[in-house]
């Protein structure tokens, strides 16, 4: 396989780095990130984490922070001497405290000389404060919990989104076939996929409710451009209620031409490569499988 990443692979790498910084990664995603990092000889960086930390700080723009409880402060103070030591920096790496920062090749740039300036402390404070006040006033960023809603806009339900995709040109739909009914259920439904939009939905009716702390469902997308041994992860999901549900497909890599979809039952968080020991549903796309 080529060592030169495609743009879609780099985008996926960035997606993983962002997800790591915002929500954290599942074990399966972490393995994927490690594999991509090794494959593309990615070097350490934490710039997405820095960017999101800066956004976190911006959330407190002009806001006086809450005061830490005095007894908590005391406990932290008492803990500190156990950890504040003049140890070798390498040991911090060994400790696993900071062990997961990688940089996609797309962001690697030749080193530039740092621009060091010496600014007066209060001048800097005043300038930054003024900028923050101005920005906060302009943005009204955190004006209300419902501020993210766009007034007057109707947000389509998953069912509407599903129907919209079904009605779109180029969408294929294929019914699920029961592959393993050892659970005793006879689930039905279909999967719709639009290659141009790289978007799809699963409609499932009767698939057994799972306990996500024990096992989860995982969708796999077989792509004509890839080996059948390595289908693309289509996302981990749960069935939380009986009856019909609609789940968006979450393809982790671009799909060239989907040929089959399979749902397996895996450990919580999913897996990178399925042993396919429990594969309750399968959907095979045949030619002209228009909805």
């Amino acid at each position, binding site marked *: 396989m080529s060592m030169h990443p495609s743009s879609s692979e780099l985008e996926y790498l*960035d997606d993983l780095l*962002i997800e790591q910084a915002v929500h*954290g990664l599942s074990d399966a995603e972490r393995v994927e990130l490690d594999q991509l990092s090794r494959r593309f000889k990615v070097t350490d960086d934490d710039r*997405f*984490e*820095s*960017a*999101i*930390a*800066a*956004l*976190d*700080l*911006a*959330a*407190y*723009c*002009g*806001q*006086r*922070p*809450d*005061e*830490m409880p005095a007894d908590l*402060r005391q406990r932290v*103070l008492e*803990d*500190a001497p156990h*950890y*504040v030591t*003049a140890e070798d*920096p390498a040991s*911090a*790496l060994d400790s696993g*405290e*900071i062990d997961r920062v990688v940089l996609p090749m797309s962001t690697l740039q030749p080193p530039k000389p*740092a621009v060091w*300036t*010496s600014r007066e402390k209060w001048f800097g*404070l005043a300038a*930054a*404060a003024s*900028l*923050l*006040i101005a*920005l*906060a006033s302009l*943005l009204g*960023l*955190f*004006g*209300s*919990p419902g501020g*993210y809603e766009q007034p007057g806009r*109707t*947000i389509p339900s998953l069912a509407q*989104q599903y129907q919209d995709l079904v009605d779109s040109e180029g969408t294929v739909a294929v019914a699920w076939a029961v592959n393993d009914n050892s659970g005793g259920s006879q689930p039905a439904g279909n999967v719709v996929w639009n290659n141009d939009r790289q978007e799809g939905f699963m409609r499932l009716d009767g698939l057994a409710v799972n306990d996500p702390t024990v096992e989860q469902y995982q969708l796999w997308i077989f792509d004509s451009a890839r080996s059948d041994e390595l289908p693309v992860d289509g996302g981990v999901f749960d069935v939380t209620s009986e009856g019909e549900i609609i789940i*968006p*497909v*979450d393809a982790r890599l671009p799909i060239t031409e989907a040929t089959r979809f399979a749902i397996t039952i895996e450990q919580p968080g999913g897996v990178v490569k399925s042993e396919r020991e429990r594969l309750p549903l399968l959907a095979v796309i045949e030619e002209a499988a228009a909805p």
Partner: protein
Amino acid sequence: MMTELSESLLQRIGSGDKSAVSDCLDRYGGLVWSLARRFTSSQADAEDAVQEIFISLWKSAQRFDPAKASEVTFVAMVARRRLIDLNRKRQSAAAVSSQSLDSVEPAALNDPTDSVSINDEAAQALQVLNELPDEQAQAIKLSVYSGLTHNQIAERMGLPLGTIKTHIRRGLVKVRDRLKPVIADQGGQV
């Protein structure tokens, strides 16, 4: 009051200077406490999280590089990282509490020099967010501040999942790329 010092507290702590611990708590205790409250659902969880965050900070202080990020940004980064880990351990990975949005509403802006965010990186990040197309900015806010998953954001905004991913990626790449010269210009100071 938050002040900028020529000598980094974390660098002092990294070299084993225990006297810097109290100063570090004075400077960043409120920020870490506020972040912990935002990410947890109870006072007890928040207190546990704060202790864990500061332990992580003490352990990683030697790796603080002022050329890469300001000290306060590094603290916020370590805090979020630890809070994510703790939340995942509690099997609530996206568990920014439901009151998160309330908790990040701005207070009165009457004394900004007391704020935790007197920091060019935060200002620049906010400015980039303001410059982004509405849908990109909205997707980022829902992800970073509200803790929604991509699927939840897609449902809420009524956009395809792939579009949401693209919005978030493109927006955060812009924030990330904007911050680099800011950090250099600060000369690595807090």
